């Protein structure tokens, strides 16, 4: 098999179509295909007549036939499916510049406008800690929240625009598609989270490498769980407007109750109870604990601001909180997979 036999340029139409013995691709031939493709790009530039992309029926010149096959379903084919669904999320994120900006607007508003605006009111209660510094860990969590929800929304979008069908009929497990989607959402959300991590200096939080790693890991977990939650909701919903409405209804209370904007100790009983049932609280609390452990503030301020979530007086440790986030995420992922597998 020689290399020049593989040049798929526009002038190769001498090859007879329909004689039944059309050449079949071989591995070594395919290996040179990339080169052939780049050669061809020049060929196309040299012959602009061939560059017509739309319209006229293409002359039935025998394009070299490359036969491929679809293998039996296996773990590696499922992993490939997961990877490509994940990559699609990243490609879409990269091409959608508006989304990068719009999903950041809300967290930044809360951090800088609300933080700076209410600072004077609250300075008595924060024992000298800037309010922006206090709500910063909360913002680290919710920046991920909004982006992850957006990623999950794309399932509704895909259904509306038909693309979901393309994935549904593929010979892969539905769970691979859901897992790929959740990993994609988690990755995209974490990229947004990094932007907020970068703002630490602006709110008097030091750039400590260990803190950054811990915060980022927590963001990843949270983003995955939230995407799984979003997918679980999105599978049942057919219209974008309804999804956005439902999300507003769920996300906003979750965010307010989580303690992102206020300390969770000494709350009115009803709010304290709600807080302990809010999954987001178990992401905000460890986030705050990590950030505060790298601040040099008075013990009084620490006691007032970072008391953390307690279960009947027992302070829930960071790892257990993170585990709660993961466990909830896995439960929702499972529900999402089951739901996704049963729809047509």
């Amino acid at each position, binding site marked *: 098999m020689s290399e020049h036999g593989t040049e798929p340029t526009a002038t190769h139409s001498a090859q007879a179509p329909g004689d039944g013995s059309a050449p079949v691709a071989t591995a070594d031939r*395919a290996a040179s*295909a990339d080169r052939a493709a780049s050669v061809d790009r020049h060929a196309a530039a040299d012959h602009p007549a061939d560059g017509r992309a739309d319209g006229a029926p293409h002359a039935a010149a025998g394009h070299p036939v490359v036969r491929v096959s679809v293998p039996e379903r296996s773990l590696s084919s499922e992993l490939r499916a997961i990877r490509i669904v994940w990559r699609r999320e990243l*490609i879409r994120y990269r091409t959608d510049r508006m989304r990068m900006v719009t999903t950041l607007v809300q967290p930044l508003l809360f951090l800088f406008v609300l933080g700076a605006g209410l600072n004077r009111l609250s300075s008595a209660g924060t024992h000298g800690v800037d309010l922006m510094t206090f709500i910063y860990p909360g913002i680290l969590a919710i920046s991920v929240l909004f982006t992850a929800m957006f990623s999950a929304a794309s399932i509704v979008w895909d259904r509306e625009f038909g693309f979901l069908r393309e994935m549904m009929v593929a010979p892969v497990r539905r769970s691979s598609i859901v897992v790929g989607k959740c990993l994609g959402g988690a990755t995209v959300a974490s990229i947004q989270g990094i932007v907020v991590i970068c703002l630490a200096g602006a709110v008097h939080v030091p750039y400590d490498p260990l803190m950054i790693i811990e915060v980022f890991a927590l963001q990843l977990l949270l983003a995955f769980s939230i995407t799984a939650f979003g997918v679980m909701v999105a599978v049942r919903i057919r219209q974008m407007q309804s999804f956005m409405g439902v999300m507003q209804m769920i996300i906003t209370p979750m965010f307010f109750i989580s303690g992102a904007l206020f300390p969770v100790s000494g709350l009115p009983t009803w709010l304290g109870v709600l807080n302990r049932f809010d999954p987001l609280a178990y992401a905000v609390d460890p986030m705050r604990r990590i950030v505060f452990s790298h601040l040099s503030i008075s013990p009084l301020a620490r006691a007032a601001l970072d008391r953390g979530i307690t279960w009947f007086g027992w302070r829930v440790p960071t790892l257990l909180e993170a585990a709660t986030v993961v466990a909830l995420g896995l439960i929702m992922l499972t529900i999402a997979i089951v739901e996704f597998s049963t729809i047509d």
Partner: protein
Amino acid sequence: MAMSEPGDAVTATSGAAPCALAIEVRDLVKTFGEVRAVRGVSFQVALGEVFGFLGPNGAGKTTTINMLCTLTRPTSGEARVAGFDVVRQRDEVRRNIGLVFQDPTLDGYLTAAQNLRLHAELYGVRSDLVAPRMQQVLRMVGLWERRDAPVSTFSGGMRRRLEIARGLMHSPRVLFLDEPTIGLDPQTRRSIWGYIRELKEQEEITIFMTTHYMDEAEWCDRIAIMDHGEIVALDSPQALKAAIGTDRVTIQTDDDDAAIEALERHFGIRARRSEGAVAFAVAAGERFVPRLFSELDVPIRAVSVSRPTLDDVFMSYTGTTIRDAEEDQSRHRNRVMMQMMSGGRR
């Protein structure tokens, strides 16, 4: 072009049992609640055939195709595609079929090449063959030069062509096309038929398609005419037309009423007015024309004789033209909708 040794060829089969039939359907039924969308259809499609399902909207074509593609579970009956059962071997069926849906299913954010690559990855096409296969199918539909453009910039015709290319990415043994040319301009429709012919020449592929364009059904090796969930006729277009046995004769006269009356009296032919002329059906039309001139006492200004079209075939089996059948359907739908809005049965 260097010859490839038989030994190093990559075969297209994916562990399927060899079979002589691409599609085998027996008594397939689908009911949605009380609506019997498909009422027991049976047919077989041979390997390498271009098989068309012809019928008005709502005749059950898409439901049938969805059952064959494993997207809808049949209520009863049996269907095998590429040798695999559509209910018990869904995965095997899916590995061996390509699908082009009526509604677009592309990701507009991605480029043409990215859409195809995504498909290849989902189907597990060997990585080193993805690029050459992509080049082949994109060249075939004339979109190779546009491969790096986002699909959102494509026209409707380009999208449909890209969907066809994508359906072929994994070398399916059976390609399903649900109304592949609906809503396209004549030029694009023609080029899509060009690809289908080219495909048939180049690859061992069976094509199953639905259409409600009569002129397109002519391209198929065999067609099944579907009406109200049943197959009312199944044969090659030529055989179906020949079976009608009559030609269509159209005459222009000085006095149409007198001509219609005279035709009835002299020949026992029932003619009718059609677009300012008199039309009727008769066997062996050319031989009838001389008798017409000598025996009809009404002056004739022009005569045309035409072979039966698929429209006539459709008419003879269903008693209506495909267009009228569709108008009936939409009228029916409107009526149902009005009833629903006004609070159900009265």
